[in-house]
């Protein structure tokens, strides 16, 4: 060991150099703003394109958008969606999903189901806080999905906008499918939505 190196070592030892060196980081951080969020007191701003929990949307008049076409089910790569469709007995010929399940524990948040939906009934929201003690409550049923959709309607619409699926309210009407009326008589009345 050379004299210079030895001198340096003694000097460092006498002046507690390592401590000052470490404290340098501490003092520097005292001076600038904290990087961490105090979750859950503080929340991050989430971008519109964020893929969070799925929700089912309604039209402005309160009707369910979903027509029970099962296309989300077939598009889902992790097979976490199950749709059971039926004819609405109150409104003949109206197809709707009588049951709708998403097993969110299996969901990989790819967003394929939203893309597959021909009527933009599914949307991803900014909701991500649904941890629970009971795993069974993570099987979202139709009611839960509509609840999510209702609570996060704006987020859902923003998601669809961000993903180029729906530009505005006008355009959402274009996607809407009008079911034909049922005739019991041979005379043809003109469909209601046309007049």
């Amino acid at each position, binding site marked *: 060991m050379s004299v210079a190196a030895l001198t340096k070592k003694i000097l460092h030892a006498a002046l507690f150099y390592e401590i000052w060196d470490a404290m340098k980081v501490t003092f520097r951080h005292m001076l600038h703003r904290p990087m961490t969020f105090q979750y859950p007191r503080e929340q991050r701003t989430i971008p519109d394109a964020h893929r969070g929990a799925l929700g089912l949307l309604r039209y402005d008049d309160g009707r369910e958008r979903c027509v029970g076409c099962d296309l989300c089910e*077939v598009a889902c790569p992790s097979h976490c969606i199950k749709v059971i469709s039926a004819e609405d007995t109150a409104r003949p010929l109206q197809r709707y999903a009588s049951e709708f399940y998403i097993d969110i524990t299996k969901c990989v948040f790819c967003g394929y189901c939203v893309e597959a939906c021909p009527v933009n009934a599914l949307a991803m929201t900014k909701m991500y806080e649904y941890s629970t003690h009971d795993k069974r409550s993570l099987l979202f049923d139709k009611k839960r999905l509509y609840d999510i959709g209702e609570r996060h309607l704006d987020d859902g619409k923003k998601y669809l906008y961000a993903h180029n699926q729906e530009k505005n309210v006008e355009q959402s009407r274009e996607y809407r499918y009008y079911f034909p009326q049922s*005739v019991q008589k041979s005379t043809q009345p003109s469909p209601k939505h046309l007049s």
Partner: protein
Amino acid sequence: MGLKPATNPDVEAATIELSIDGKSVTAKDGVSLYDVIAMTGKIIPAMCYHYTFDPFGSCGMCLVMQEGKKAPVRSCTAKAAAGMVIRTEGEDLFLARKKAVEKHLSVHPLDCPVCDADGHCELQDMAFQHGVTNLANAKQKFIPEDTRSPVLDFNMNRCIACAECINVCKDVLMIDALQFMKKGGFNQVVAKGDLALDCEFCGDCLAVCPVGAITNKFSKYLYKPWQMKTTTTTCNYCGDGCQLYLETKDEEVVRVTSPLSWKNKWGDRSETAKGHGGLCVRGRFGFEYLDSKSRLTQPLVREGGQLVQKPWLETMHLLVERLTEIKSKYGADAIGGLVTARCTNEELYLFQKLMRAGFGTNQLDSSARYGHMNFVLASKRAVGLGRTPNDWEDLTKAKTIILIGSNITETNPLTAVRIKEAIRVYKAQVVTLDGAITNIAKLASHPFLIKPGTEGAVIDGLVKATIDQDLVDEEIVAKHPHAFEALNSAVENVSLERLAAQTGLPVEAFREIAAIFAESPRSIILCGEGIVRRTNGYQNVLKLMDLAWITGKLGRAGCGVNTVTEEPNEQGAVDMGAAPEFFPGQARFDDQGVRDRFAKAWETSLPPVGSGAHLIEILKRCKSGQIKALYILGENPLATLPASMEVRAALERLELLVVQDPFLTDTGELAHFVLPACTYTEKDGTFTNLEGRVLRVRQAMDPLGESLPDWHIMTALANAMGCRWEYQSANDIQAEIMKLLPGYYNLGQPRKVVPIPDQYLSDGYTAEVKARYQQTPPSGEHTRPFSLLMGQLLVHSGKLSTQASGLIKIAPNTGKLRMNIRDMERLGLQDGAKVRVTSNRGSLQLGVQPDQSIAPGTCFFPEHFNEPPVKDLMPVSVDATTGVPSFKQIWVSVEQA
């Protein structure tokens, strides 16, 4: 082939040569160009084409370039001609076809997500194949959906006007229930006259619709094609044995589709002689009983007058205990068994083995006893063959068909389609002889209405007319001069004039029918329920054999005497030996050699000859107390036989009644043990149809609840009774049958059989024939003016179909007597009026409704319903030779109540 084949059994078409895509191709003259191209293996898209009917040429997709023509031609409507030079591929053709798709799509609603045909749609496939992504000038039709029919919905927004539905209905099924109609500016498919569709509801229009314009109400919106598992299996309703695709989603049957489909549009027209692949209303829409809520899912045991649910293990313990007790106390002859012909061959085989080897009794019978046994025993006696000699192809290609006592479009709709094809394509002469105005009579060349119950007399007349007019095949009868002599003297006293008065058939008609039957090269007799299920059925079948014999039709190719069966496996029940007189393979039970063979194969001693009993005898022995325990597998004698048989009293006297059934039947409610069996969708096996073709039944889903396949229950029972059966699956039973009856399965093809009457004619014929032609009609019963008939409806089959909610929706139990409108007018009755029907057996009050198919002087009630109990008005006469009970006809008086 689309165009009617130029080749038929009588004429061979000329051969032509043409060039397709540079290759030289030979073809038959007269077929369409499209068929010739399809024959080479090239597939040109075509949406309005189907091989079962003539090309229509509306879709504009099958375009090809023909040398010498500037524009592409439609290949389907163009006839192939010698020397044509055809190009089927190329950019120009692709673009022309794309334009055609765009034309269809521009007025299509594009509602694929909610359309039932999504994923199974030819227009979708074509749009994808041709890359149609942009549509200029797309417009919507906005036509309301026609939901008036109880079965099919017509959404004409989706229609591409290919007319496949109209063509299949008109050309193949000859029902002609659909038509085009210009409505709201568009050509739409509507039911005839724009009324609510009211047809036979075979659903073949639904099958061939390439888009979702026609949809099925019972499965609407319940599925997407890709979600379902498809199983090919055999229909469980009638003896036709149609193949069907059962589409299931988990434990739920969603719909039934047929091999006839737009997906399956290329074929040879001559192939349809073996069946066009369609289904009838029962097969296609009668699936809802399979996963019905009323299915039994747990064994039931009677405890203190109540049926209580019990676990299998406990039930079997109790049951075996009771059975062993009865067997040790009263002997094996205190046990009897009945089985339904809706079971598979394997189960029927196992049933008779269980009865004979397990319980040691020969008191067993199947539901073939209700009629088919008459044919089997008569045919076996006369020609040594216990089944029909002809298959569907023979029927289609026949020149003359005599249809006697059969409403075939109702009982066996797909066999009826074969006769329709014989009429339409091969120009056959069809003679119908029935007591009702049947649908097939409306198409037949020689329709005759006879007085009900006189079928036997008609045959007498036909035999007499044949001999009188010297239409006898001399060469054939010369082989058995004594037999012919006996027949001649037997019919000597038969007078055509008297028969004409008795049957209502003019004397000339007898002569004409005899002449066309005797003179045609391929003549087939088809006898139905009017022969085999009525009194003297056995004798009447023998008389038909006589008729066929003297005209030289027995044993000749394409000729023969045939019958139709009501249940899917009546033939199998006889072949599997589920009858006291037969071992498997229709070997006689009293034949010592056969007995030794089966005793050795089953490693047991067999019940003695002479101890056997058929259905009626079993019920009689139950009533007399000789039989103490009855094992009923799927049968329901209480709801089938009239009250005069005293079935209830017989069953109530039993110490042990075991019923094994998918549903809790009337008989089941009396039982001490009810074992839940599963339906044909939940098990493997085979059915033998009326042609003798062995058809596979495949498992489509798991047994519902705790129900089990019948073979499984029987194996468990046998093992508990001390047998050592090691069947793990239906395949193991099949292997045993294959060993005992080599060649029975025959790879699902009907075995060619030749009826040989020589044995019978040289031995025993002369002694029997005299009695056959001496029958006088039972007098005394004619004091009442109306003949009440009970029979089958198209929409129903036995009691089983009444569990299918869809079929009940189409044809509910109206509880009304059906009468001819003229009779109703004469009696001053309105539709729905109450009448009192009185027979010698009692009287009953019920409503009345007009029915076009009922002949004057008759009235009809469907046999599927017991509410009101019309069957209890019927007398039962049991055939002396075959033990077949007949209880479908009686004379009644009808008066306003």
